[in-house]
């Protein structure tokens, strides 16, 4: 048993045939993860007691000969913006450094009910704001493929643990590319499901109309399994979708011959030559599997970043208002009045990027600017969404790069917020439209840096997306 290469199916088979116990996998995964963590800082903290208690329940089922649930014995990392009852959830922020949630996120409840074993909480950019993981108050994550480079962000820790083999799968969150971009930088599969597919209850709110929870894994089938376990209507999130959750794994493996793929021409500009080369080879591979490829237009793409940074920061300024020094642990000690205590607690404990977004969001919502910025951006968001709807009249899926470049060096973009924002150019549109999209590995640069290919489908088109991705992964030999 090597936790670095185990799949969900192999764990289930090994448990059923008593090759190993859930306690054995959990202990060995925890030991390995704790020993390896210094290299990458991918985990912020571990929860061994909780993990072993979850494992004991699985071993009891095995002993009684009862059927094993979907994620039985699977070691999982959970991004530290997703609340875990009794286990510290910091959002990688000083303002929540000591916060111990009194409840579980729905996704956490569901993955534990399905037998998943949470090993610990993964590092991310503060409140999931960032594209490099350098905005963590507790130190950046290093890319397991190249330790002097960023793992991407904001779910860099969740991507890194899967790439490093210190978890089999993980949960991240995506608001503007925070699952797909780190998945591409670390060479793993990362999935942003349809908006509302997974309940946001217990995902610490960043930009509510854009936030998604989604899986990371080393192969497509494992992401499909994890998504199935956590998806579905939740009365605790009014925006969670009623649509029934299909058995994604049942359609994986079916032929992709005849699927119509669109290449949005606006997404094939401005990338490095190695990224272009690998993505273009990926498209050729899909053609060789019988897909019909055509160029499509998403004409409002160039306005996506401006639209995103208005809507997301406006929602940030509202959502982060709750961190006021009263309810959530960190409070300024040098304030005589309530008002000063609010401002000082926030000033002392938020990091630079959180402050920048709170300020931009407050500015665009302030008197005299609301119509010009916020309403304008919401209108353009509608146009961007309509571009996708028009494209999906002609094609079953869109194929594009995930990021214009592979993982960059730590510190390389940290002083230039606009350059950092522009690195999300191919991923934020999917969040604005709320469509499912994912990153699947499509090769490495000559220096061994992973590159990801993005697949986007229409709302609730996850089955087609997974089927395509898995056929691609198999044909290209890209499974980890």
């Amino acid at each position, binding site marked *: 048993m090597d936790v670095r290469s185990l799949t969900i199916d192999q764990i289930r088979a090994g448990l059923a045939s008593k090759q190993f116990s859930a306690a054995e996998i959990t202990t060995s995964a925890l030991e390995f993860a704790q020993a390896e963590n210094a290299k990458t800082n991918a985990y912020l903290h571990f929860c061994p007691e909780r993990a072993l208690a979850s494992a004991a329940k699985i071993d009891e089922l095995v002993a009684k000969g009862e059927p094993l649930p979907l994620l039985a014995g699977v070691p999982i990392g959970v991004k530290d913006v997703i609340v875990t009852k009794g286990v510290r959830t910091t959002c990688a922020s000083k303002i929540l450094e000591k916060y111990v949630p009194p409840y579980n996120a729905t996704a956490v409840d569901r993955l534990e009910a399905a037998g998943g074993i949470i090993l610990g909480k993964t590092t991310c950019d503060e409140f999931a704001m960032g594209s490099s993981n350098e905005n963590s108050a507790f130190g950046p994550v290093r890319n397991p493929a190249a330790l002097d480079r960023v793992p991407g962000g904001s779910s860099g820790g969740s991507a890194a643990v899967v790439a490093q083999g210190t978890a089999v799968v993980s949960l991240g969150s995506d608001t503007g590319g925070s699952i797909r971009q780190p998945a591409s930088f670390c060479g793993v599969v990362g999935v942003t499901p349809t908006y509302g597919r997974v309940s946001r209850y217990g995902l610490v709110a960043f930009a509510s*109309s854009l936030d998604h929870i989604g899986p990371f894994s080393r192969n497509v089938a494992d992401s499909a399994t994890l998504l199935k376990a956590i998806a579905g209507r939740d009365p605790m999130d009014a925006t969670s979708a009623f649509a029934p959750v299909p058995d994604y794994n049942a359609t994986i493996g079916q032929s992709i011959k005849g699927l119509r793929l669109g290449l949005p021409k606006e997404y094939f500009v401005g990338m490095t030559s190695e990224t272009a080369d690998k993505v273009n080879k990926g498209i050729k591979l899909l053609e060789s599997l019988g897909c019909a490829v055509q160029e499509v237009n998403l004409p409002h793409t160039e306005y996506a970043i401006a639209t995103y940074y208005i809507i997301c920061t406006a929602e940030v300024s509202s959502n982060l208002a709750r961190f006021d020094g009263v309810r959530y642990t960190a409070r300024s000690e040098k304030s005589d009045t309530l008002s000063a205590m609010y401002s000082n607690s926030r000033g002392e404990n938020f990091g630079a990027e959180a402050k920048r977004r709170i300020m931009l969001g407050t500015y665009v919502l302030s008197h005299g600017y609301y119509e010009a910025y916020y309403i304008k951006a919401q209108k*353009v968001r509608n146009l961007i969404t309509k571009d996708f709807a028009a494209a999906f009249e002609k094609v079953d899926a869109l194929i594009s790069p995930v990021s214009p470049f592979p993982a960059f060096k730590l510190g390389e973009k940290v002083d230039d917020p606009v350059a950092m924002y522009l690195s999300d150019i191919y991923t934020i549109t999917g969040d604005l439209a709320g469509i499912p999209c994912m990153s699947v590995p499509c090769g490495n640069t000559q220096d061994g840096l992973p590159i990801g290919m993005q697949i986007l489908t229409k709302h609730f088109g996850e089955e087609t997306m997974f089927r395509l991705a898995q056929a691609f992964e198999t044909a290209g030999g890209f499974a980890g």
Partner: protein
Amino acid sequence: MITEERVRYVAGLANLTLSDREIHRMAADLSGILVHIDKLNEIDTEGVEPMAQVLFDNEETATLRADVERPSLSNADAVANAAITSGGYFKVPKVIER
């Protein structure tokens, strides 16, 4: 361009204490981002509906639930994460200056 004076005003709205150094940097950063954001003025959005949320076809009342009592957090759990509490309440500095 955003002036430092404007940054101070917005920081007040956001209840966010910023140092002089942060204010200086913030004025430059926000100005840079706003130059990019102003690109939106190129597009004619006359007659386009603002999109506040990704919505799917549902009955209007689909997300409503029966108004029945459910267990909630205990008082002790609700205040457990606060910096300072007293007798089950959040404790804050004085609100009114005398």
